[in-house]
């Protein structure tokens, strides 16, 4: 709630409180007034009762006078009229008691100059109850007419009989009058009793009402005090609460003002911190600007100086080469310059202004920001682009010489390019040479291995030839040799030499560089590799377990190169088993076809390759073997052959395998070769 609303609320509460107090006071005063009226009403009822009682007494007296003074006709008439007057008054009084109203009673006075006074008594009938005294009295009052008439008749007869000197009738009439009058005191007494009952009951009622009213007045007074107190307390509390809130709001307002001033300063500082000229406008007049404006214009010391003399910076805009992008202080088809900029936000508008010394170019941008539904500000930013403009001009000059410079630079680049190609070729050649050397090294390594294998292969037949020849020589010296035995020995020796020849053939064919691509069965290549390495395996009691695929694994490629791969892996397995002194040593070799791939796995039980080097085993010149044994080329070459020549992949992992019912861990080489090798392989 705003302070104004709170103030209004405070005034409203005060007025409401005042009205409530007045209303409450009035309400209770009315209640008390009503009670006073009730008392007055009851008093009036009693007064009417008194009037009635007086009237009954008057009638009683006049009725008695009638007997005494009623000898003459005139006297009877006068008295009867008087009685009639009182009866009318009585009836009026009873009517007021029955229905309520104002009783007007003329009281005769024997004061000089004042013969009578008029008294008005107002009685309000408060409920619908029957007025018992009226019911009691009214028939008796009406009956008085008859009584007066009867008495008048009797009195007239008395006078008549007296005149006629009719003694008998006269006496009878007197008896009748006497008898009649004998009943009247009781009659009027009864009437008096009736009205006395009214006075008695009225008095009781009056006292009762007075007591009740006294209690009610006390109650009303207490209630009045209570409600007035409550109203005052509420108004005070609300007033204090609202005042407190207003004070609080004021404090907040002061705080906000302080913050606002700080913010203004901060905004001014931000504006002043801008290197460009920043102007805040309401669309027509300049509201605020940063100090850059007075830094630019020498003739002004402060922003206030500027704004006091110029409502708009546009006063300084100048024309430049009739360039429409340069804004001027003019009418743009019904729009002022700011509106024109705002309507064309994508155009790069500029202005040119003179600082006092020289002209400066500025890029000009305007942004409209709404600060409420209706109010807005326009922030105009002017960036000094004089240097850019100058640069552009210089650039235009430079452009003219640029082509010749480019040509010279192109030539330089061409020369550099040529040198680069040559250098690249040289490096490629070097690499090829290196590769050749590596291949050569690999071949030599393989040759070394081969020689080792040949040595193993030949050891047994040579030993057999030697022992056969020695045996034959001994038999001949002892002359115990038969012709058959000598033939048999020769045949054995020939058989051994044929085996040796065959071995040489095998190695030769292995070493042969079959550069031609032929179709071959991988199983055959594996068999040959096993054949070459089998002697080495036997020497170290290493058991080679093979599982060949039932179908041939036909591929296109170089079988000798692939056999080099298997030979490498088998020899590595053997070396690892020997080095780690694994007994018994096992090598498990499996060839199989899965989908369109041939898979060859070679698993040993030498314990596996340490984790820290397993990723490096295919790197060139990496070896775990002694310098004398390994070159670090074998697996690198194997990877090269499988990937480049067979278009396959070779991986290694440590694996636990179950061989002959026992679990062993070791390195497992997996070679995957696609069924269809590209023709260019």
């Amino acid at each position, binding site marked *: 709630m705003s302070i104004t609303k709170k103030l209004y609320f405070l005034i409203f509460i005060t007025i409401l409180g005042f009205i409530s107090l007045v209303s409450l006071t009035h309400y209770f005063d009315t209640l008390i007034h009503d009670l006073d009226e009730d008392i007055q009403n009851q008093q009036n009822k009693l007064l009417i009762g008194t009037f009635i009682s007086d009237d009954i007494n008057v009638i009683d007296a006049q009725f008695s006078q009638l007997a005494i003074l009623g000898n003459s006709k005139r006297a009877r008439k006068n008295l009867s009229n008087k009685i009639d007057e009182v009866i009318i008054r009585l009836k009026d009084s009873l009517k007021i008691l029955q229905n309520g109203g104002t009783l007007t009673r003329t009281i005769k006075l024997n004061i000089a100059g004042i013969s009578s006074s008029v008294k008005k008594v107002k009685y309000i009938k408060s409920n619908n109850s*029957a007025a018992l005294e009226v*019911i009691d009295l009214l028939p008796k009052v009406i009956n008085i007419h008859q009584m007066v008439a009867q008495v008048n008749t009797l009195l007239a007869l008395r006078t008549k009989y007296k005149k006629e000197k009719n003694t008998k009738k006269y006496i009878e009439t007197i008896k009748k009058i006497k008898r009649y009058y004998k009943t009247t005191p009781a009659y009027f007494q009864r009437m008096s009793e009736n009205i006395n009952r009214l006075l008695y009951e009225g008095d009781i009622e009056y006292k009762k009402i007075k007591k009740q009213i006294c209690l009610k007045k006390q109650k009303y007074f207490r209630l009045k005090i209570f409600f007035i107190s409550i109203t005052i307390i509420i108004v005070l509390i609300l007033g204090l609460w609202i005042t407190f809130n207003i004070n609080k709001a004021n404090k907040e307002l002061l705080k906000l003002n302080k913050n606002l001033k700080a913010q203004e300063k901060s905004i001014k500082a931000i504006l002043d911190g801008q290197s460009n000229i920043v102007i805040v406008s309401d669309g027509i007049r300049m509201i605020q600007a940063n100090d850059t404006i007075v830094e630019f214009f020498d003739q002004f010391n402060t922003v206030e100086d500027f704004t006091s003399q110029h409502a708009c910076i546009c006063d300084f805009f100048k024309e430049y080469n009739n360039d429409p992008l340069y804004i001027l202080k003019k009418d743009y088809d019904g729009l002022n310059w700011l509106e024109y900029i705002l309507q064309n936000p994508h155009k790069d508008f500029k202005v040119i202004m003179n600082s006092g010394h020289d002209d400066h170019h500025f890029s000009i941008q305007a942004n409209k920001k709404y600060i409420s539904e209706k109010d807005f500000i326009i922030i105009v930013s002017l960036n000094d682009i004089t240097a850019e403009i100058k640069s552009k001009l210089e650039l235009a000059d430079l452009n003219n010489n640029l082509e010749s410079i480019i040509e010279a630079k192109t030539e330089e680049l061409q020369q550099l390019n040529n040198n680069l190609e040559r250098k690249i070729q040289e490096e490629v050649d070097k690499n090829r040479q290196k590769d050749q050397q590596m291949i050569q090294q690999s071949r030599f390594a393989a040759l070394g291995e081969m020689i080792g294998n040949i040595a193993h292969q030949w050891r047994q037949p040579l030993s057999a030839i030697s022992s056969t020849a020695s045996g034959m020589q001994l038999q001949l010296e002892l002359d115990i040799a038969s012709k058959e035995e000598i033939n048999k020995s020769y045949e054995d020796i020939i058989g051994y030499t044929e085996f040796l020849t065959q071995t040489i053939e095998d190695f030769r064919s292995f070493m042969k560089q079959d550069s031609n691509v032929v179709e071959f069965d991988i199983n055959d290549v594996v068999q040959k590799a096993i054949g070459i390495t089998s002697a080495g395996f036997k020497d170290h009691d290493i058991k080679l377990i093979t599982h060949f695929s039932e179908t041939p694994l036909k591929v296109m490629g170089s079988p000798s190169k692939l056999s080099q791969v298997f030979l490498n892996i088998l020899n590595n397995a053997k070396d690892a088993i020997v080095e780690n002194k694994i007994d018994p040593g096992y090598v498990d070799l499996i060839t199989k076809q899965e989908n369109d791939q041939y898979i060859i796995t070679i698993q040993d039980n030498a314990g596996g390759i340490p984790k820290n080097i397993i990723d490096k085993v295919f790197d060139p010149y990496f070896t775990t073997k002694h310098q004398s044994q390994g070159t670090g080329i074998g697996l690198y070459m194997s990877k090269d052959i499988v990937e480049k020549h067979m278009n396959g992949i070779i991986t290694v992992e440590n694996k636990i395998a179950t061989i002959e019912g026992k679990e062993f861990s070791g390195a497992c080489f997996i070679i995957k070769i696609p069924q269809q090798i590209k023709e260019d392989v």
Partner: protein
Amino acid sequence: MLSNIIKFIVVLIFFSNITYAKQNKPELLFYCGITMVKPMEEISKIIEKRENCIIRIIQGGSKDLYDSLKLAKKGDMYLPGSDAYIKKNKKDGYFEKSVYIGYNKAAIFVQKGNPKNIQNLDSLLDEDIATILCDPNSGSIGKNTKKVLTKYKGKEFFDDAFDATVEVGTDSRNINQALKEKRVDMAINWRTSGFWKENKKYIDVIEIDEKYAPKKKLMLTKLTFSKHKKIVDKFMQYAVSKEGIAIMKKYGFR
């Protein structure tokens, strides 16, 4: 504050409702001969409680009462001291239904201990005895006195007795009052009132032969202009019930 205002309003409404309820209780007017006022007041209180109503009794002489109801044309019940008023005025058409609730019988009332040694009605003409008789045109006992005395020794006897009185009463109550205040020595009144607590220590009752003073029926009568006929019926039912009869008996009307 708000709750207090609400409480105040509720209290105001509550009290105003009570007042309203009081004001709106049905109010019955009962024209009752003065002799029977006591038992009728007792029954009225019971009926007021049962029927949540107010019964206002106008008491007086039976003829005066009839004149009042005839003029006012309002009221619910009428109980004169004698059924003669019912019979005589039935033609006016104000009576609807009557029930017999007891009887009255005239008797000679004398000062306690009967110092004047009064024995019969002849004492009414004794010059040494101050008497009071009821106005025959006012109360039922006045009318009945005239009948009794006329029956006893003729109209002349009644006129002589009436002429000989020192006072004329309007109803049974002021006759008893005259005796109690020793203004008179002898009276004729409804015998039951002579036995009431407030009277019996001042008054002795001398019976009158029933051939002169027969029992007069007390007929409780519903008025035609009654606005509360159901309550009147309830009143009448109660008056003739065992409880009602017991009350009437207590005051000597049975």
